[in-house]
């Protein structure tokens, strides 16, 4: 037993660390933290990553990716969080691209992948529907053949950044079979198409990132179909498994824990420092000890991945524990900061504490989504019950 990286991996770690130090400049950091003009700031950061060749972390080399090992990806992600740098917007590079390069044809790869790499195309995900959430196979958006096209009618919901997306990748129903999972196809739809309406959904974080996307006889050329008709469920499932492995968020949680600990050294409680309050200490260590366990859970999965095993229900476990820890940290961060955590201000802050307070409110409120998206934690428990416990 040991937790040592190879010397090559340690060199890689140094290289990544140095990159983040020079590339994630204070100016960029200020823009990210202001929360303004999310899209252009994200494009600026993603372009920097792409110039370095480190944007498409999960892609194979042949299609312009890094071809990194699981350990290299882990190191990259850890160093990114240590540097406080933002994650990339996942819908293009992490979500649709793997489906395109795995199941798409050469023409589709040539057409879409370069524009994802350059952040020219902005994607959103059309899976959930008003009547199909955790039970995704209940989806009813229909795509009916009409000559060389499909006509798509229906509605997608919880579509993050649909308001600024150029494309949406959708699961649509193209056939009716006894098994609901059959008859679903994977379709790429231009958001500028006639008949698409984006209705904003304002969320409890007083922000607009979610939308409903309504399709009314939207004409989609059949060259936008990925793989074979009625096989879309298989492609999407491969993608969902990926979504779950990156969801534990260990390195991000560690950074939050550090921030809370540092804040608690400055904040007071009665006549002493908050960090010396035994009740506060216990709330903090409840979380830290779980996080220490999660770190080794993730490393154990990583070691398995490195030796060629594919992760199964472990990703469900990481998702449940990871998101529970994130939410506990979000709550404790608000309490540590105090009443500023209720602030709705997005600029003109009284102080750094005021800014952190407002951020912590947004993080807490939107953070409720983490136990819901990517397969709710209850659905993950069903997965573990079936796959691991044989129930």
């Amino acid at each position, binding site marked *: 037993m040991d*937790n040592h990286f190879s010397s090559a991996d340690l060199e890689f770690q140094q290289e990544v660390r140095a990159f983040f130090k020079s590339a994630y400049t204070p100016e960029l950091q200020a823009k990210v933290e202001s929360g303004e003009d999310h899209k252009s700031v994200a494009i600026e950061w993603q372009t920097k990553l792409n110039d370095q060749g480190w944007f498409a972390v999960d892609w194979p080399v042949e299609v312009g990716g890094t071809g990194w090992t699981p350990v290299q990806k882990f190191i990259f992600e850890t160093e990114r969080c240590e540097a406080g740098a933002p994650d990339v917007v996942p819908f293009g590079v992490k979500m649709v691209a793997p489906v395109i390069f795995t199941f798409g044809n050469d023409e589709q790869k040539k057409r879409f992948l370069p524009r994802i790499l350059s952040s020219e195309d902005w994607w959103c995900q059309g899976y959930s529907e008003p009547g199909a959430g955790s039970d995704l196979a209940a989806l009813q958006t229909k795509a009916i053949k009409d000559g060389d096209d499909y006509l798509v009618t229906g509605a997608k919901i919880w579509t993050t950044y649909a308001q600024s997306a150029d494309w949406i990748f959708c699961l649509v129903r193209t056939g009716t079979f006894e098994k609901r999972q059959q008859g679903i196809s994977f379709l790429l739809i231009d958001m500028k198409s006639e008949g698409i309406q984006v209705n904003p959904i304002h969320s409890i974080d007083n922000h607009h990132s979610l939308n409903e996307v309504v399709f009314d006889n939207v004409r989609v050329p059949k060259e936008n179909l990925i793989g074979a008709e009625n096989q879309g469920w298989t492609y999407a499932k491969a993608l969902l498994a990926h979504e779950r492995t990156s969801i534990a968020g260990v390195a991000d949680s560690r950074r939050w824990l550090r921030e809370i600990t540092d804040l608690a050294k400055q904040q007071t409680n009665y006549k002493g420092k908050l960090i010396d309050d035994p009740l506060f200490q*216990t709330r903090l260590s409840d979380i*830290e000890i779980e996080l220490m366990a999660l770190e080794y859970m993730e*490393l154990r999965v990583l070691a398995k991945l490195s030796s060629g095993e594919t992760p199964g229900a472990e990703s469900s476990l990481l998702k449940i524990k990871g998101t529970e820890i994130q939410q506990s940290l979000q709550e404790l961060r608000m309490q540590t900061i105090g009443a500023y955590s209720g602030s709705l201000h997005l600029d003109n802050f009284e102080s750094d504490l005021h800014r952190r307070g407002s951020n912590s409110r947004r993080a807490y409120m939107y953070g409720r989504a983490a136990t819901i998206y990517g397969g709710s934690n209850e659905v993950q428990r069903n997965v573990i*019950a079936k796959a*691991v*416990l*044989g129930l």
Partner: protein
Amino acid sequence: MNFEYSEEQNALKESIVRWAQDNYSFDQRRVGADSDNGFSQDHYNTFAELGWLSVPFSEENGGYGGSVVDIAAVMEEFGKALVVEPVFPNLILFGGLLERSTNDVIKADLIPQIIDGSLMGAVAMYEPQARFDASNIATTATEAGDTYSISGHKSVVLGGAHAKKLIVVARTSGAQTDEDGLSLFLVDADASGVEVNAYPLMDGQQVADIHFNNASGQLISDLGNASLAIGEVLAIAHVALSAEAVGLMSVLNRTTVEYTKTRKQFGVTISSFQALQHRMVDTFMSYEQAKSLLVGTLVELTDDRTTPERASKMVNALRTLIAKNGKHIGDEAIQLHGGMGLTDEMNIGHYHKRMMMINLMFGDGDFFQQQFNQEAYAS
């Protein structure tokens, strides 16, 4: 990066699994556990023959030279089999302090006897007023010619009922709660001035309160300087108990899942109810957390880059989590077994009682979490 036991460690584990399958069913175990002795000397002799008792001892003392990972590998399997024979008090506590003794003659004499199974020893350390504080020692030792004269009261001495030799932690200087001023003494259990009041614990351990009244003891540590050795032995003991607890948890979970697949109510097996499935997923996650933190602790304790502060943090975190998750798993096992969970004939109650006893040994969860807090946060 590798978080699995080595081939040798797996072979060691496998030998315990095979022995337990053939010789240590729940009913076979009870023959020894329910006897006056409280365990089976025959089984204990088999442990010696199979070499398991040599694992923690250094090669120069005739042992296997095992690391804390080897110890954990053995203890995890002993936990699964719910071994009641007093391996832990004899090897990890008594043997551990003996190995750190400054008296080479005594080491050379006694360690081989532990390894061949002929000697039972115990460590008399904790006292009634001290609860979990290992340095709150009122027992005193004063020089009396070539030996020392020891007086005091030691409580819940693990292995104390059978021990022929005792290592007594006694104060030779300083105030009652000082870490300095503690020394180790070897005392014959049948010496004059030693009164052993034996009683069983709920997990089947045969322990004793021991009263020393001017009993004669031989100094086996540097005078007044035993706290380092005690700390080292306790750290290994914490990991050993945690490994045993992880073994207990795995059996509690497995047994409970199997039970719900056979128990029928409302015309179906109760494993089909989502309310119960999710509870079993939660206990599975509790186990995976504990196992992962155990592995992490083993990896870091055997890494020479690990600072003493980090090692202490890992051990305190581990025992805090083991206490919390062990109780969670044990309580749920009983609840999901329903009325059957309360019966003495089912093994899960016995596993749970061992789990609860581990959570009272050398500290409970709050005790370890408070130490964690002190070291990690206090300004």
